């Protein structure tokens, strides 16, 4: 079994800055992010992008791990329906997204913390808007704090 | 989310609670906690100035909150989820839950499905009863209450009755469990119960296997009864022990009976008899809320059942106290007989020997259990012989919208109640579970207290006392949190004797080898 060590809490924990992990597909959304760069657009610096070849590679485990490891939000970016570089990958993503959303809701994680966006290579502005909007929504929700929670669990019994 | 979902309250729950509280307020309250029980026994005994036992505490620490976390689960998962309440009697929970589902979906299973269920259930009863006699309760008698604890276990029994018999015991139990697995999927935590029937038909091969073992089972049951008679009834000390006032309580009894008022484990009406042995009431299980209530004490996780109309009068016996008892002795007390010939003979011998109904001697549970063992074995044979058993139509698909359902069976340790309410999608909104041993918890409390008071005089505690106190609750085969099965003798006990200021005068500790240490 893989050892799941919990990260220590941020030091110091000043004003809340949402930490968002993004999974972008190599052909659409990652390129849109590149284009946003070459077009010198400006957006919130809270997102950390993990590049995958296709949004279809996003294993729900990745999303849950991100939350468990302290992400306040998770964003998946893929090609528009019908535009998948691998023909159908993004449909699989869409289906998993819907089911995972239901699970997260049952686990008390707000809808706005988990988001799927179709952003084509040309839609840099769409990316900018999506990121900014998500950061604001998550900021409004406040920290997810799953990590400290897990520690609390450790606390309550170590007498 | 379930905890927020109280929008459309279900009438029965409201009324049930309302009535109960009204009844409660009408009576005088005496909170007089006397006993405690834990998964592992711990008894704190407090003496008064006179050095007499003033109080003994005995409690259950486990609480897993099934009633809560089943909220939101699909009702059809309940048979499998609730069987995890107890890994020793999973089939009882599985069956009670399954029956609750029939009731929830208002669906009548095909006759063959009922037979298959009862076949599995009877096999399970036989298996569980024999487990208790040989592994848990029996050694007290087979080897004697005062035998060194290290010997008072199944291996000791084997030593006494011979390895061959010992192997026979183990093999018999294994075969029974294998049979259960054949039909139910798994022996521990079965999977076959569904609303309106069972998941799988019985193949001719399976039926054959049941038939082959049925006779062995009966022989085994008879042998066990003979063993009991030989070892226990032939021994006047044991008989006196059974009859002694220390182990006697005059309470109500409850159990399930068929149309002919004979003992039935799987289905029927609940019958309650008074301490005098008259029928107090006979009611369909669905009406349990009008007749049974649970009392909460701040010092124990376990709740104490009593007859609601009679009311809670504290830990007292007699006709005006609502405390009642379940399990084998209770079942025999409330019934007019057994549904199978050999068991019926054993039944008659039981009462004639013990001076007629009702029998109030707690330790008689061991004997009663063996009468039931014989009945279960005979029932297995009857059902296994049924030509209809292999009928492939084992399911009726439910069509009604689920709302509310109650399911009751007689678990080895007594009446077991499952009561669910769901939304229209069949997701559990509320669940109420009355586990068999809970029905006994009040009487058990009294037994331990009585044993303590009867046997302990001052700081000087004779070692034999320990097991005799332990016997007082082991007779019930207690299954608190349905997880407290412990081998006799290795059931470690801690007894502290204290003065009225709580100052420890003496402490006796028996370790898992049964050696007693004075500290």
């Amino acid at each position: 079994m893989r050892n799941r060590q919990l990260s220590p809490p941020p030091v110091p924990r000043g004003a809340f800055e949402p930490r968002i992990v993004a999974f972008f597909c190599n052909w659409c959304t990652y390129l849109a992010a590149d284009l946003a760069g070459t077009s010198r657009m400006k957006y919130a610096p809270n997102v950390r992008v993990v590049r995958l070849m296709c949004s279809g590679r996003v294993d729900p485990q990745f999303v849950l791990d991100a939350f468990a490891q302290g992400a306040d939000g998770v964003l998946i970016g893929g090609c528009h329906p019908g535009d998948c570089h691998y023909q159908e990958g993004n449909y699989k993503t869409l289906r998993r997204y819907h089911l995972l959303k239901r699970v997260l809701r049952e686990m008390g994680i707000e809808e706005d913390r988990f988001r799927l966006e179709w952003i084509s290579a040309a839609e840099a502005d769409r990316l900018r808007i999506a990121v900014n909007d998500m950061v604001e929504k998550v900021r409004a929700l406040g920290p997810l704090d799953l990590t400290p929670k897990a520690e609390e669990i450790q606390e309550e019994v170590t007498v | 989310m379930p905890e927020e979902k109280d929008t459309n309250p279900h009438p029965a729950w409201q009324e049930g609670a309302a009535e109960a509280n009204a009844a409660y307020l009408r009576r005088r309250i005496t909170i007089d906690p006397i006993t405690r029980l834990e998964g592992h026994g711990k008894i704190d005994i407090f003496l008064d100035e006179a050095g007499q036992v003033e109080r003994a505490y005995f409690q259950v620490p486990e609480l897993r909150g099934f009633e809560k976390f089943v909220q939101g689960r699909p009702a059809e998962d309940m048979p499998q989820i609730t069987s995890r309440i107890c890994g020793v009697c999973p089939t009882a929970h599985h069956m009670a839950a399954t029956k609750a589902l029939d009731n929830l979906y208002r669906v009548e299973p095909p006759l063959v499905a009922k037979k298959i269920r009862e076949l599995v259930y009877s096999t399970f009863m036989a298996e569980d009863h024999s487990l208790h006699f040989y592994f848990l309760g029996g050694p007290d008698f087979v080897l004697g209450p005062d035998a060194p604890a290290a010997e008072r276990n199944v291996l000791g029994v084997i030593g006494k009755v011979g390895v061959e018999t010992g192997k026979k015991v183990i093999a018999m139990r294994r075969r029974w469990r294998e049979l259960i697995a054949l039909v139910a999927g798994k022996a521990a935590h079965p999977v076959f119960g569904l609303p309106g029937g069972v998941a799988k038909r019985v193949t001719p091969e399976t039926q054959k296997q049941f038939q082959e073992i049925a006779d062995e089972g009966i022989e085994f049951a008879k042998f066990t009864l003979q063993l009991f008679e030989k070892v226990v009834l032939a021994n006047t000390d044991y008989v006196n022990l059974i009859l002694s006032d220390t182990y006697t309580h005059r309470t109500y009894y409850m159990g399930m009976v068929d149309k002919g008022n004979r003992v039935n484990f799987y289905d029927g009406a609940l019958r309650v008899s008074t301490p005098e042995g008259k029928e107090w009431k006979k009611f369909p299980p669905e009406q349990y809320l009008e007749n049974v209530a649970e009392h909460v004490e701040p010092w124990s996780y376990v709740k104490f059942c009593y007859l609601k109309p009679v009311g809670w009068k504290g830990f007292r016996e007699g006709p005006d106290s609502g405390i009642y008892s379940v399990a084998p002795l209770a079942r025999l007390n409330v019934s007019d007989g057994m549904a199978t010939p050999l068991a019926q003979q054993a039944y008659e011998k039981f009462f004639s020997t013990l001076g007629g109904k009702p029998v109030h001697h707690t330790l008689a549970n061991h004997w009663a259990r063996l009468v039931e063992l014989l009945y279960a074995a005979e029932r297995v044979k009857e059902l296994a012989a049924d030509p209809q058993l292999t009928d492939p139509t084992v399911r009726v698909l439910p069509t009604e919208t689920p709302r509310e359902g109650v399911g009751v069976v007689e678990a080895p340790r007594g009446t077991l109640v499952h009561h669910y309410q769901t939304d229209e999608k069949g997701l559990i909104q509320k669940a109420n579970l009355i586990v068999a041993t809970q029905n006994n918890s009040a009487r058990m409390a009294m037994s331990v207290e009585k044993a303590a008071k009867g046997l302990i005089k001052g700081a000087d505690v004779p070692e034999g006392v320990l097991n005799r106190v332990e016997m007082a609750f082991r007779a019930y085969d207690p299954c608190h949190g349905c997880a407290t099965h412990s081998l006799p003798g290795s059931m470690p006990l801690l007894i502290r004797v204290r003065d009225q200021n709580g100052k420890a005068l003496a402490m006796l500790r028996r370790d898992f080898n049964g050696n007693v240490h004075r500290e």
Partner: protein
Amino acid sequence: MSGKPKVAFYWCSSCGGCEETVVDLAEAILDVAAAVEIVFWPVALDFKRKDIEAMPDGSITATFLNGAIRTNEQEEMARLLRKKSALLLAFGACSHLGGIPGLANLFDRESILKTVYFESPSTVNPENVLPLTRYRDNGHKVTLPDFHNTVRTLDQVVDVDYYVPGCPPMPRILGAALKTLLSGDLPPKGAVLAPDYALCEECPRKDTKPGELSIAEFKRPQELLIDEQTCLLAQGLVCMGPATRAGCEAVCVQGNMPCTGCCGSTGRVQDQGAKILSCLASLVAGKEDAEIDHVLDTIPDPVGTFYRYGLPGSFLRRKRLNGVQAPK
């Protein structure tokens, strides 16, 4: 005391079913009894505590601990046993993954107590009496163990050497585990002592699984007459088999009911629920949100189904209760 290897069985928050597995070794139990010295089975807390503390560290060859960690007593015992045992095995689903009682992590302590002692229709408690962990009863101080908010797996509390999966573990698996330990030829630390492939491999219905599965509707067992030969997924039932470790020989499927996942995931997967979710969702028919939701509506309780045994051991461990609930 003999020189035979000492083996201990201890239970925390569990149902006793794992104990039954030991009994279910049946005749084999005599061989086991011959080969090892069963030092506890099971044992009392206070008592055992003193007694074990007296033992030298690591003097127990192997402790099979079943049940999840729910109370401070259990927590302390787990730590103590860890100290005293050369090998500590998480025995059964509850200590391995959290088990069915781990579903309590969808609620908190208070709501559980409330339901059991206030809301039960048969309970008469107008004064709202609750069991107290510390209670003075005219001069007599009596205590109950503290009941935690969160159920945890054994390896979330102490270091675990091996895992014996199953609810309860198959006697065959336990027997094999004992053999392995006695053989002295130990597998790598952290190993789950069962085959490391999914259940389908040993499922009698494997061949009936269609190659091209597209699921337009999930069925609940009471909604159809379940064919006794055909793959249950192919019949639309949610079967955890593809995401569940083998070793039980598919007993539930042989009972004509779907696998519910008690053996946990394979060693290559960290979150069994997430994996079956990914697998099933990928096979859902439909490309439009509405179509997809329509199909997913037929899984009424995804968390309770995918995490039936594994919630405490999952990435998220427990429900976040201060989270704002989105409307269904």
